[in-house]
């Protein structure tokens, strides 16, 4: 499987995703280190958005 190229919504840099990413997965932009989430994913296209802020009930 090949990797997917996509664009960071924060810094606009082109980011290379591993072929093993999943929708809803949290990743970091290799350029600006922003925490991003895979919003949607098809065979050769991924859409990223900024990871949400921590909510009150989040935790272990």
């Amino acid at each position, binding site marked *: 499987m090949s990797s997917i190229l996509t664009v960071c919504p924060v810094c606009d840099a082109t980011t290379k995703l591993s072929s*093993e990413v*999943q*929708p*809803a*997965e*949290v990743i970091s932009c290799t350029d600006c280190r922003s925490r991003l*989430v895979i919003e949607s994913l098809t065979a050769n296209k991924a859409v990223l958005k900024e*990871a*949400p802020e*921590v*909510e*009150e*009930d*989040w*935790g*272990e």
Partner: protein
Amino acid sequence: MLTLGILHTLIRADEKLLLQAATRRNIKTKLVDVRDANFNPLSYKPEFDLALERCISTVKGSYATKFLESRGITVLNPSTVANICEDKFLTSLVLQKNNVPTPNFTLVFSTEEAKKASEQLGGYPVIIKPTLGSWGRLLAKINDVDSLEAIIEHKDILGSPQQKPIYIQQYIDKPGRDIRLFVIDGQAICAIYRKSEHWITNTARGGNATNCRLNSQLRILAKNASEAVGGGILAMDIFETTDGYTVNEINHTMEFKNSEEPTGVDISGTVIDYCLEVYKKL
């Protein structure tokens, strides 16, 4: 053949490790983003045989678990365990009742009672923390009555309804570290020290993780504390005191990604093996 449902919200490195461990064992997985779920009992069709609850959102994870259990599906951890572990007051109560060492604690609803209760707990400093919550957020070390009043007023005015109960715990003077003990079905599998200059040692807040060798006391503590909350897959926060170990709290959807490397233990693999074991007994 088992198809393992993984209930999730955001997928972290921890969930990826679990998925990889399942793949290595030829176990099929079905990712279930509970944010997109429609838990209508008349229409819901599960596509898995057993579920592992891994939601970052405690509330969503808890409802998903209760729903699936109502449909006859086994969830790890079961709601009986999650109900206790998600609430620090309930966890303390259950530990205390089962004679598992835990710091002294109380729950009050007013500043006046909080003042009296703090004295009763041995005086300042005391710790105030949300009964629901994690990663060391909104924890307060109260060094005197002035800060006690200030913190409670802030909680009262700025806090959500969940911040109204005031859970107070005795402050434990730790040796610059605490222990995170990983326990599956009553068995301690590994542990790390979380070291920090700050009294809050969470790795999520910059604490540093190193291996902590298991000993017989930790194994016994693991077994007893696990029995107290109902077993399952647990991460226990433990303090070292001059009187021995004391269990601060127990996490039921544990994060472990920073712990496999220092301990050399395949935590994700052990979790998946346990899921398979539970499935075989169904």
